[in-house]
Structure formats: structure tokens, C-alpha cells
């Protein structure tokens, strides 16, 4: 075979070769070889691994997969645990794994699940073991709740097995109900010895937890380092298992590994008898002794634990003694050096912030009934069907949301769980009792859908169904699912709601696909900077959808939303855009004039398009009748209310919205703004922290958080430190916080830094949230003034004026543009013009009409007045707004050079002092 010439076609399969591989190899043929020659006796259905035929998957966890398999020789059913290659990093890891597995395999004890063989397949290690037909203890843990003796007997057996392993110098390190298995006779076995140690060797702690799962049964010292782990760690775990059997839950719970371990290390163990008075006191004593935070105070060995449990079962007095409740915690802190080390490590390792948030959250809000419909997995092959699964999920979610009696989490908050599996964690995070998940496959004519309803509190399936139908039945299937789910959750459905659920959004599947894609784009705009492009594309897709189906009501509603948002956000603040929104509403209204969604769309238009608050609120009231729990309603109502100055009510409505859409960054940030304007800074910090838990790398949010100290106490250090750290660790992110950099530079009177910030912000104007934007020449003028370079300031302002004038001419009644012109004129010494423009801006946006922008206009008038030397006017204006919620804060007034002309004036100083933080 010629090696030099490039072949054009493959001689065997006829494929055209494009030089993918050297020496003219044909990739298709090579792949065929790989498929066909994979294993001897390769079967088309099922899979074989060496001597084993894989029958079905039993469990799939972070570390690996467990299959039920049939061994050929000897012929028997076994469990095959395959470690994911992900966790085998290197040759040494592989060697170490074999060593651990072989050591574990050498343990022969009636309570230890026997390992038959250790091997490796396609690079992934595995071992085969006895198949336990009785399943895991996790599945049966509820059965022991009122049977303390049985629980004790079970744990005694487990302890004996563990003790045996300890005698052979093998620790388990990851004892939990998932590792306790039963055979068909109900005999218990402990499995997976040594795996945790092998894993811990490979990765750092956070990864280990990611693989092993939330460590509800893990001794706190295990988190510190492997060196500190002794046999007593296994004793702790046995105690935690006993605790769970007796009370129905592990001793310490939490959202994250860090949280659980932190509690386990710091908090006294809640006494089991507080949960369940029927637990015998001696058994409680045994249990708590295992759970002592100081390993030295636990049972000295698993055998000692087993002995005491046996004594208890026999009705004889036990060895362990009860300690007083109050002294327990203190003793540990004083005498246990590992404890202090643990605390320090946890602080170093964990996000302490996250801990504080969820501590307060979890205590206040238990999981309520309700459901989250998670993104469905898309199993379709064709690229054109990529959004099909999302469409199915969206439709089911929408239908469920029509039921007033059901709490349904908004789509924004669930989309972030795409691909995630832990129902219990999701349930806790979203505070719902159930999740619905599933998978969808479609081809050209049929749809195959799998759906499961899971109770998050127990992590069990409540209902599952498979559908294999004609594609045209798609919406009918979704209605069925919605009905079934509502039934399972015992939600009352009214006749009108039944009708709504049974309806089809559209008969045209292509239109529905376009709609789904648009929806996905619209989701993204809540926390993404490509807003404009996304919104325009969404509009385009929706237009195509309604072109195909002029009766597609939902698409018109989304179209209205898209246009109105483009208008209001300033991305396209033109009357043409507004007209498009109104046309879409007209179309929707012709189709369904009384629908809640129509009223909601109108409300959005009245508010965003016309600032007609009363009109909007009336429409919202009408919408509430049929969409009582739609978070958008609460959101919109809140935004209107705060523009009306009804801040407290607005805050309450936002809190409702958060409950229904807990992971919606946008809502969290808006609520944080609320708190900022209300000067409730502690609450603002807490909310921003919460947003950061959801999006730890959101630089903008981090900056907002750091800035709270600046606004509240005129303390710039946190913001300064944050910006420095971003500069060194993530300089690519600097442009996103140019506004904050600029503010900091001004407040620190660092002209060079201000200049840098200006350059970094690129072509974007510098802006604050009240809608006022400063163009670049204006900012340069400000910087020049700071440097006392009057000539430069003047020329910069002149340039700025020309630019700003154009903007004002294009939008002559837009206050925020006019007030900037006024400020520029003030900088140029044109006193009359400046004051006139400032006053006009205030007139254009009366505070009664828009509490947020209105007050901002007054603030800028005050600034204009200060710049032209009219201190009386300036102080009078400031005094009139200072006690109302607004963006005006202590830090700004105290530090920004923009207010310098007023410094020293006793009235101004008094105003500043009135905003100073109170000592508390």
C-alpha cells in the first residue's frame, strides 16, 4: 500500500477521504474495526465485559456504576461495580485501586459482602461481588423507625463486620446506609471497604465529596486530613446510621458537604429522644457515644460498640455512661486540638458565606409541598430536534402552573439543573416536595417519553410512566402527565383549569419548536450580557412561529414581552418597537381576550411602555384571577409599587416571587436593590450573598456586594480589595465592572485609576441604576476637574455638550438625558442654562410618577446647583429627598468629588451626618 500518496476514496467503503488521518486511513473503516473487534463474543444487545454479561444497571453514582450481571463460569448472578475512568487518573491510581480492592477481597466474614474478582475493562477497573437481592439499607431505613431493638441488632452485626476489618487493618471510611446491603434472606452485609481511602488519595476534599456524596454519616475529623482518621471514624458512622434508623434522619443535615461537616463539628448532637420519645434511653446513650466529636471519647473500637449493643439487646446494663447535655460542646472545644484545626480548615475550605445564608434559610423555611419540573433529557439523534425536550418540559410546566392549588417553580430557576440528578438536594434548594424529570426521544413520526415523579423528601419514585406514541399526540401526553402529577400531589383542579390544561398551544410542531427556542433565549437574558442580540433573535423566532400558526396565542404573548422589554430596557427605546409590542398584544387579545396571560401582557405594556401604573395594576388584578401564582405577576407588581414609592409592599411581593423562582438571579438582584434603596444594608448583603451562592463567579454581583460597605459606611476597602484581586486573578472580567472601578477611583480621588476605568469600559457610557448615563467626554471633564486642570475640563465638557445635545434633541422629553446636559452646562459655567435644564428634568419626571427616576432627577438638580454655586438650592433639594428610599447614600455624599462644592456648608454636613451608620 502506498504510504505517500493521498487517497481520494476508500477502496472498501467508498467514502470520500478528506485527509482526516495520515497514510490515507479511512476513519469510517477504522471505527468499524473498533466496533466489531471490541470484545470476543460481542453481542448486539446487552454488553459483555470479559466473563460477565451485563443485565441491567442497578446504581449510578459519582464514583462508578453498579450492574447486575451474569457470570458465565461459575454461572451465577453477581454485582459488578465499575469505577468510572474519571476517577482513575494514572497508572499508580490503578495499582493502588487493585491493592485496595484485593485487600478488601481478602476479608472473609459473614457480615462483609464477598468480592469475587478484580479486573479492568477498556481502561476502567471493576470488581465483582455477591449480588444482594435485598437491596440497600437506604431503601428500607424507614422500617426501623419504631423498632429500636431491631435497629440495635442490625447495627451490632454491622459493627462486628467492621471490627473484623479493623483487625485486618482495613478501615471503611464511608459507612452509610447505601453501603449496607441485604441478601434474599435479609442478612446484612457491609460493602465497599477501602474505596473511600483510594479515592481520597487521588483528589482533594471537595472533589471527594462530589464523588462520595453528602457526608451525613462521616466523622468530622475525616474532612481535615486522612492522617487524622482512625478506626473511630467508622464507629462514628455506625452511630450515625443507628441514629438515622431510630429517628428517621441523620444527626446533621445540610445542603453541602461543608455545611454538614461544619454542623457535625460545631453543634451538639440533637438527642434522639427529642425526636422520638419511645427510643430507649440506653440506646440513646450508645448512639451519642458513637457520635462524640472527640474521637477519643467514642467507643474505643467497633467491637466495643457491638458488645454494648448486644448488652442492650439482652436487656442488660450497658457500659457507656451518659454525659450532661450542656458540657458536651464546651469540653470538645477546650480539649480537642483537632477540633480547632477542623474549624480552621473548614473555614479555609468552605464558603463561610454560603454557610451563613443557608443556616438562616433552612431554619426558617421547611420544605413545602410543591413541584419543580426539571429539564428533560433529550435523547433524539437529529440536531433539528435539539430543543424538543425543552419544549416538552416547558409545556408540562406551563400546564401545571395553571393550577392554583399547586406551587410550581418557575422555569428560570429549574433550567440551571439541567443534567443534575440529586432529587433531594434539588428539593431542598428549591423548597419543593417533588420533582418531575424525564427523557424524550423523537424521530420524524413518533415520540417516546419517559417521566418520573420523585418525592424529594425520601428520594423515592412516586409515579413513573412511559409513552410511545404518534408525534401528533404530543400535547395530549403532556396534558396527561400534568393531570397525573396534580393527582399525585392531591391538588384540586377547577373545571376551568382542567380545560386550560387540556388545550394545545399550537397544532404546528415546527412553530412550537421555534417558540421553544425563543423561550430558551429569553431565559438567558436574565443573567447574560448578550441581551440585545438574544432578544432580537427571540423576536425573530417568535415571528416565524406566528407566521406558521396565526392562532398561536402563547407566542404572541412572548412576543409582546420581548418587544416591551427591548423598549423599556433602553435597548430599543423607539416608538416603532412599542408599536410592535402593541400589535402582538392585539393579536393575543383577539384570540383570547380574557386570558390571564393577555392581561399580564397588557400590564407589562402599560408599565414598561407607558409608565401607566394604575392601568398596569388594574390589568395585574385581572390577571391574578387566573394566574394567581405566577412569579412574573409578583415581580411586575413590585416594580410598579416601588416606582410609586410603595417600597415595603414591593419588597413583600418580591419575596413572594423569590419563593416561586428561587434561583432567578434577576429577582434576587432587584430585591437587593430594594434593600439598598431602603438602606437595609444587612439584608441587602444577605441577598447578594445568596445570589453569589447561585453564581459564584458573577463578578458584577461580587462588586455590588463589596460596595455595600461603601454605600453604608463609606468604607471602600472591600471594593478596593475585590478589584485588586480581580485584577490579579481574573483580569478578563474587569470590563464588566468598569462602573464600579470608576466609582471607586472617584471616591479615592485617584485620577489615574479613573482614567483607566474609563478606558476599560470601552465604548459603553458610565451609568448608575437610576437610568442616568454619562458619556465619555463628560467623564473626562470630571477627571480633569479633579486634577484642577480647568482648561482640559472645559474642552472635555464642550465636546461632551455637543454629544449630549444630540441625545436630548432626539429624545427631548427624556429627563435622564436632560439632567446630564444640565450638569455639563454647569461644568461650563452656563448657570442659567444649567438650572433651567435641571429643573425641566425634574418636571419631566415627577416623583409621584416615578419614585426612582424622579428622586434621581432631584439629586442631579442638587448637584447642578452645587456646581453653579447655588448652595441654598442644592441643600434644599437634597433635604427634600434624603429621608426617602433612594440610591442616595452616605458613602456617595461623603466621598464623591461631585459633591465637593458643598463641603463645609453646615446644612450639607448635617444632611450627610443624618445618613451616617448608627452604632449598633
Amino acid at each position, binding site marked *: 500500500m502506498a504510504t505517500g500518496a493521498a487517497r481520494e476514496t476508500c*477502496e*472498501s467503503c467508498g467514502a*470520500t477521504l*478528506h485527509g*482526516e*488521518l495520515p497514510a490515507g*486511513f479511512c*476513519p*469510517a*473503516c*477504522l*471505527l*468499524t*474495526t*473498533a*466496533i466489531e*473487534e*471490541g470484545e470476543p463474543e460481542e453481542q448486539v444487545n446487552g*454488553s459483555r465485559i470479559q*466473563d460477565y454479561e*451485563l443485565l441491567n*444497571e442497578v446504581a449510578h*453514582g*459519582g464514583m462508578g456504576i453498579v450492574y447486575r450481571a451474569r457470570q458465565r463460569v461459575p454461572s451465577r448472578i453477581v454485582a459488578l461495580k*465499575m469505577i*468510572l*475512568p*474519571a*476517577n*482513575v*487518573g*494514572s*497508572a499508580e491510581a*490503578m495499582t493502588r485501586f487493585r491493592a485496595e480492592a484485593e485487600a478488601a*477481597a*481478602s476479608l*472473609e466474614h459473614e457480615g462483609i459482602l*464477598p*468480592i*469475587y*474478582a*478484580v*479486573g*479492568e475493562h*477498556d*481502561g*476502567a477497573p471493576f470488581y465483582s461481588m455477591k449480588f444482594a437481592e435485598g437491596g440497600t439499607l437506604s431503601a428500607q431505613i424507614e422500617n426501623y423507625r419504631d423498632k429500636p431493638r431491631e435497629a440495635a441488632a442490625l447495627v451490632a452485626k454491622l459493627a462486628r463486620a467492621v471490627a473484623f476489618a479493623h483487625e485486618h487493618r482495613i478501615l471503611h471510611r464511608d459507612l452509610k446506609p447505601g453501603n449496607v446491603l441485604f441478601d434474599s434472606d435479609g442478612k446484612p452485609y457491609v460493602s465497599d471497604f477501602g474505596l473511600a481511602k483510594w479515592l481520597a488519595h487521588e483528589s*482533594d476534599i471537595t*472533589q471527594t465529596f462530589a464523588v462520595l456524596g453528602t457526608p451525613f454519616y462521616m466523622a468530622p475529623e475525616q474532612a481535615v486530613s486522612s492522617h487524622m482518621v482512625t478506626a473511630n471514624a467508622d464507629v462514628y458512622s455506625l452511630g450515625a446510621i443507628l441514629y438515622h434508623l431510630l429517628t428517621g434522619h441523620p444527626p446533621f443535615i445540610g445542603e453541602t458537604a461543608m455545611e454538614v461537616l461544619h454542623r457535625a463539628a460545631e453543634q451538639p448532637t440533637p438527642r434522639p429522644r427529642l425526636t422520638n420519645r419511645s427510643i430507649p434511653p440506653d440506646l440513646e446513650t450508645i448512639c451519642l457515644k458513637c457520635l462524640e466529636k472527640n474521637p477519643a471519647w467514642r467507643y474505643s473500637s467497633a467491637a466495643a460498640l457491638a458488645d454494648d449493643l448486644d448488652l442492650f439487646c439482652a436487656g442488660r446494663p450497658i457500659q457507656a455512661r451518659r454525659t450532661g447535655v450542656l458540657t458536651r460542646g464546651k469540653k470538645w472545644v477546650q480539649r480537642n486540638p483537632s477540633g480547632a484545626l477542623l474549624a480552621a480548615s473548614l473555614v479555609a475550605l468552605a464558603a463561610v458565606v454560603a454557610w451563613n445564608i443557608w443556616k438562616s434559610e433552612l431554619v426558617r423555611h421547611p420544605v413545602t409541598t410543591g413541584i419543580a419540573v426539571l429539564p428533560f433529557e433529550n435523547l433524539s439523534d437529529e*440536531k433539528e430536534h435539539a430543543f424538543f425536550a425543552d419544549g416538552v418540559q416547558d409545556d408540562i410546566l406551563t400546564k401545571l402552573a395553571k393550577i392554583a392549588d399547586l406551587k410550581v417553580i418557575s422555569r428560570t430557576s429549574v433550567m440551571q439543573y439541567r*443534567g443534575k*440528578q440529586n432529587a433531594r438536594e434539588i428539593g431542598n434548594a428549591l423548597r419543593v416536595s417533588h420533582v418531575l424529570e424525564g427523557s424524550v426521544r423523537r424521530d420524524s413520526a413518533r415520540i417516546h417519553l419517559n417521566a418520573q415523579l420523585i418525592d424529594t423528601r425520601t428520594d423515592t419514585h412516586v409515579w413513573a410512566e412511559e409513552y410511545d406514541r404518534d408525534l401528533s399526540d404530543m400535547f395530549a401526553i403532556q396534558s396527561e402527565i400534568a393531570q397525573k402529577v396534580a393527582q399525585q400531589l392531591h391538588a384540586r383542579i377547577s373545571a376551568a383549569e382542567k380545560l386550560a390544561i387540556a388545550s394545545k398551544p399550537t397544532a404546528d410542531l415546527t412553530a412550537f419548536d421555534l417558540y421553544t427556542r425563543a423561550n430558551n433565549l429569553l431565559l438567558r437574558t436574565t443573567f*447574560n*450580557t*448578550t441581551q440585545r442580540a438574544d432578544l432580537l433573535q427571540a423576536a425573530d423566532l417568535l415571528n416565524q412561529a406566528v407566521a406558521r400558526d396565526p392562532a398561536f396565542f402563547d407566542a404572541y404573548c412572548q412576543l409582546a414581552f420581548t418587544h416591551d422589554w427591548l423598549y423599556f430596557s433602553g435597548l430599543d427605546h423607539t416608538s416603532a418597537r412599542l408599536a410592535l409590542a402593541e400589535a402582538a398584544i392585539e393579536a393575543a387579545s383577539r384570540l383570547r381576550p380574557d386570558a390571564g396571560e393577555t392581561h399580564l401582557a397588557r400590564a407589562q405594556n402599560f408599565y414598561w411602555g407607558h409608565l401607566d401604573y394604575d392601568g398596569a395594576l388594574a390589568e395585574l388584578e385581572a390577571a391574578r384571577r387566573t394566574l394567581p401564582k405566577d412569579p412574573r405577576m409578583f415581580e411586575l407588581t413590585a416594580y410598579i409599587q416601588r416606582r410609586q414609592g410603595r417600597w415595603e409592599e414591593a419588597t413583600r411581593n418580591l419575596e413572594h416571587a423569590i419563593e416561586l423562582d428561587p434561583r432567578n438571579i434577576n429577582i434576587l438582584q432587584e430585591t437587593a436593590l430594594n434593600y439598598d434603596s431602603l438602606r437595609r444594608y444587612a439584608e441587602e448583603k444577605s441577598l447578594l450573598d445568596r445570589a453569589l451562592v447561585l453564581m459564584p463567579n458573577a463578578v458584577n454581583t461580587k462588586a455590588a456586594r463589596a460596595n455595600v460597605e461603601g454605600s453604608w459606611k463609606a468604607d471602600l476597602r472591600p471594593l478596593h480589595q475585590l478589584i485588586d484581586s480581580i485584577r490579579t486573578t*481574573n483580569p*478578563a472580567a474587569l*470590563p*464588566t465592572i468598569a462602573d464600579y472601578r470608576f466609582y471607586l477611583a472617584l471616591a479615592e480621588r485617584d485620577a489615574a485609576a479613573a482614567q483607566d476605568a474609563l478606558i476599560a469600559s*470601552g465604548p459603553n457610557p458610565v451609568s448608575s441604576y437610576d437610568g442616568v448615563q454619562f458619556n465619555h467626554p463628560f467623564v473626562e471633564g470630571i477627571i480633569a476637574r479633579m486634577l484642577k486642570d480647568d482648561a482640559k475640563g472645559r474642552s472635555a465638557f464642550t465636546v461632551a455638550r455637543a454629544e449630549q445635545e444630540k441625545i436630548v434633541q432626539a429624545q427631548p422629553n427624556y429627563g435622564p438625558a436632560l439632567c446630564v446636559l444640565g450638569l455639563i452646562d454647569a461644568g461650563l459655567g452656563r448657570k442659567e442654562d444649567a438650572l433651567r435644564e435641571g429643573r425641566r428634568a425634574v418636571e419631566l419626571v415627577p416623583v409621584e410618577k416615578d419614585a426612582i427616576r424622579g428622586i434621581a432627577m432631584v439629586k442631579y438638580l442638587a448637584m447642578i446647583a452645587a456646581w453653579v454655586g447655588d448652595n441654598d438650592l442644592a441643600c434644599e433639594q437634597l433635604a427634600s429627598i434624603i429621608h426617602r428610599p433612594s440610591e442616595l447614600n452616605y458613602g456617595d455624599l461623603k466621598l464623591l468629588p461631585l459633591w465637593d462644592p458643598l463641603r463645609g456648608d453646615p446644612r450639607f454636613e448635617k444632611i450627610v451626618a443624618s445618613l451616617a451608620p448608627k452604632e449598633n
Partner: protein
Amino acid sequence: MGSLCASHETGERFEETAWSVVIATGATTPARAQTAMGELCRIYWRPIYAYLRRSGYDTNDAQDLTQSFFQHLLQNETLRRVSRDKGRFRSFLLGALKRCLADEKMQRHTLKRGGRIQFISTDDLEAEELHHLRAVHEAAPDEILDARWAGVVLERALEKVRAECVAEGKAGFFEALSPFLEGTKPHVSYQEVADRMSLGLGAVKTLINRLRRQFAAAVRREVMQTVSAPHEVDDELRRLRTVFARVREQAF
């Protein structure tokens, strides 16, 4: 106690490969993370680069974006949050790349920087450019990525098998017999090869079968490193194969 059976091949060296490297990038020491990232880039830059070129970026921008993409992955801790229960590395990379490209800011920042990627030799780059030029015009960027991905996997497997042969002192065999990795050749008979190698026909057939199995095992090990469950290996292989079928169809 059941006997412990050894695996059917022995002493395989495991290099740091895709997923395990991904995990390593979540490791605490920055040094190790950087090494891992370098490794990822070294292995998988081609499909990313090919995708970008097909998407319309010129060669300089494509280089910049490729480098930025991998850096972005590392910095944003996307890798740390990868769900190892589901998903193939290939799909994950494609998804991450699309998200990255949609992020205008990343693009703007990247394109300002200029400069060549440090870890790729000019020869390799030129070779990749050649691929780009000869690729089917109608193929979509996704398909190009898949095709180049398959190319990387197969090349690595071929190289591994070649190295194994060399280590056993059988370099010549690999050269002579590797064409048969694709299956029977219409124009070359086993007898001809046997004659050329001064071996019996039976011996040649045995050698070829062994080489094919060796190759298949090497390919499967490569793919295993990028999927999340053993039974996905076949699936992934079949899927990659269909890419070439599609790409082929579009040429007509």
C-alpha cells in the same frame, strides 16, 4: 473465596487522559491545574480549532479563541462543576464552546489580544489548516468537530499500537499489516503480504487478527476516557462513524 482473575492484558501504561485531566484541573494546586489544562489543549485543540474555522473565524482569530476557550474553561471553574454522571466529554466541550462563543465579552477581549498559541507547533497548525481546506464545504461546524474528534481518537490509538509494536521489536509488522486494520483489502491479498514478509498465510492471518484486536482495544480505551459509562463506548463509536457517513453524503 473466588479467585482473583487478572485483566487480560498486563502492564498497560495509563497516561493522563481527558476526563482524569479534567478532574485534575479541579485540584487545589494551581500548578497541577495548569499542567492539566495544557494537556487538554494539547489533545483536543484540533476539533475546537476546526469548529472555529468552519464557523467562519480566520486562522488568527481561531487560534486566539481556542486558547481563550481553554483558559475560560479553567478560570470559570466550569470543569470543576462538570457532572460526571452523565454526558460525554465531546458533547460537554461542544456545549461549553458554544456558550463561550455566545459570550460577546469573551470574544471582544480575545480578539483584541492577538498572538499565537504557545502549545501548538507551526507544523501542527499548518496541518490543521490543510484539514480545514480539504473538509467538505457543506458540513456544519458541529460535524467538523465530531470528525476531527474521531480523527484525534483514531490517531492516538494508531500511535499507541505502533508504539506497542515497536516496543516488541515488531515495527516492520505494523507497517506491513496496518492497512488491514480497516478490513480486507480488495486489491491486496493476504498471500501477497505473506510472501513479502516471508511468512506462512496462516501466520499472517493470525497476526492481522491480533493487530486488529489490539487496535480496537486501544480505540476503546481512548473513548472510554471520554464517556461516563462503559456501555457508552459502543454508542460513541457508532455515533462517530455516522458523522463520516453524513459528511460523505453531503459530498454528492
